[in-house]
């Protein structure tokens, strides 16, 4: 377990290497929809979100979250959820390998805090509904808060049972809540929710969707009144709510939601969900971007979501849950803040350095776009975190997609793939899948790449560039963009 822990002796401010063992996962962005820097939001808000990897895009380069699966009971059925299917290798919401009592959860949180100095947030995201399964949720928050008072507490819920819990959440200092809202029109909702359980009765059809909608809106209003920051998650379901996303966005922002996260439906027949069994597919990357665009250019959207499990541990994009299963936890564990405090001190300086680099990169892209009329460029970046180009092409499981034009460098989305390099040899099937996944990309930026994959990518029209090892992502993208401008618009020249 300790192998992955950041060695404090290796932390050097502003060093291109960053932590010797950089935090895995994460991407980088000067202008992701989620707030990236303090200037984007009021100071009081920034203080709340700066260490929360889901609420502040920048924070997810440096801070980790964990979910504890203490709340298995749910008060409704969604057509994208099947409560009988659990798999340790699955990464999607609602899936867990083991459930914990509040006491076990508190022990696990302390054990993780000792091993993962990046830990900043404890979330309860089911696997059922934490606001409905309230006794267990509340007991867990109270126990953890008593041991680790600076850990941020976070709840993810469908909102049906939430309105009556807002006052208690406020008292317990829960500063972040995520509500999953897929519709604001009961006619749309009736196709997503077969039933809800409300006030002693199972309700179906339009009645169910109408009650859920009213309770969700009431939740948003009460949370806003209590000054609790709200993120809204919406599952994008092709054929059901894709044309409805702009309405959802308008309704939730009007009620004070801080951030909107439109997530693709995950739907496979083997999961046994109603949508999976009826063959409803998830949206394509283009459909997801279209739905995001329909919410308007200035919308505050989360684009770095990894749709993590209800027992995920670690940085976004990685899951170290298997290192902290119940059988591996010590019976007694006490919190040691030394590494955690040192890590936070390092992040403080490192993130200021990176912010400066990102601003300089935007300025450079602006100059290149204006003076050389360089065409926009879409780039896939290989990174292990820290906002740097520090991963080999062959070892990359997730490309970070960026767009650059005269307005600057913008994060688009993560894209997961299988690694190309297995046991020292390239896999041809994987190469074909990578070319497919990156069909709209003109350039790959990586720390290193072999001759053969470089040739194969070139044939597919993708230039692989490894001239910027360990550089900040924005800096490197701005530099290649400036170069394409000088080379008369030929990408990767």
């Amino acid at each position, binding site marked *: 377990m300790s192998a992955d822990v950041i060695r404090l002796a290796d932390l050097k401010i502003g060093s291109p290497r960053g932590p010797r063992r950089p935090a895995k996962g994460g991407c980088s962005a000067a202008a992701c929809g989620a707030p990236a820097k303090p200037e984007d939001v009021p100071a009081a808000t920034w203080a709340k979100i700066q260490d929360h990897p889901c609420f502040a895009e920048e924070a997810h380069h440096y801070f980790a979250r964990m979910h504890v699966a203490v709340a298995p*009971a*749910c008060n409704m*059925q969604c057509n994208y959820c099947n*409560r*009988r299917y659990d798999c340790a290798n699955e990464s999607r919401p609602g899936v867990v390998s083991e459930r914990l009592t509040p006491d076990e959860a508190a022990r696990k949180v302390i054990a993780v805090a000792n091993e993962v100095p990046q830990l900043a947030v404890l979330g309860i995201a089911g696997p059922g509904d934490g606001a409905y399964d309230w006794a267990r949720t509340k007991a867990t928050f109270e126990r953890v808060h008593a041991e680790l008072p600076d850990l941020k507490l976070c709840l993810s819920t469908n909102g049906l049972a939430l309105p009556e819990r807002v006052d208690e959440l406020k008292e317990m200092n829960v500063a972040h809540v995520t509500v999953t809202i897929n519709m604001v029109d009961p006619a749309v909702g009736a196709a997503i929710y077969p039933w809800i359980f409300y006030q*002693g009765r*199972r309700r179906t059809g339009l009645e169910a969707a109408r009650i859920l909608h009213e309770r969700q809106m009431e939740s948003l209003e009460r949370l806003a009144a209590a000054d609790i920051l709200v993120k809204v998650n919406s599952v994008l379901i092709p054929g059901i709510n894709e044309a409805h996303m702009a309405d959802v966005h308008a309704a939730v922002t009007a009620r004070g939601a801080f951030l909107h996260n439109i997530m693709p439906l995950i739907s496979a027949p083997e999961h046994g969900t109603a949508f999976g069994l009826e063959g409803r597919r998830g949206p394509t990357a283009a459909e997801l971007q279209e739905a995001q665009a329909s919410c308007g250019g200035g919308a505050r959207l989360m684009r770095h979501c990894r749709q993590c499990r209800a027992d995920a541990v670690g940085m976004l994009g990685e899951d170290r849950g298997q290192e902290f299963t119940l059988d591996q936890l010590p019976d007694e564990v006490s919190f040691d803040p030394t590494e955690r405090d040192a890590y936070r001190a390092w992040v403080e300086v490192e993130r200021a350095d990176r912010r400066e680099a990102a601003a300089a990169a935007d300025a450079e892209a602006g100059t290149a776009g204006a003076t050389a009329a360089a065409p926009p460029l879409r780039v896939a970046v290989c990174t292990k975190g820290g906002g740097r180009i520090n991963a080999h092409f062959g070892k990359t499981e997730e490309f970070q997609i960026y767009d650059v034009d005269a307005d600057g460098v913008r994060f688009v989305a993560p894209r997961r793939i299988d690694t190309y390099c297995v046991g020292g040899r390239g896999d041809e099937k994987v190469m074909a899948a990578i070319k497919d996944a990156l069909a709209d990309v003109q350039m790959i930026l990586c720390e290193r790449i072999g001759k053969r994959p470089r040739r194969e990518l070139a044939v597919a029209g993708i230039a692989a560039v490894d001239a910027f090892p360990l550089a900040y992502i924005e800096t490197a993208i701005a530099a290649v963009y400036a170069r394409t401008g000088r080379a008369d618009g030929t990408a990767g020249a």
Partner: protein
Amino acid sequence: MAYKILTSQCTVCGACEFECPNAAISLKRGTYVIDPNLCNECQGFFDAPQCDEVCPVPGTCVPAKGGGKAARG
């Protein structure tokens, strides 16, 4: 008149436990069971048995035909 839980289908989510107005449901050795002496199928409280109303797996909370001392049939 009592209900029972089909263990093989139960996801052990516990929703039935907090909805039961008779406190007839408890976790025993990793599975939820209904005490037939306490269960009255929610008569006098609700129109329908709450365990069956809230259970996420259809046909898991069912009448215990001849199952317990107080069972019907």
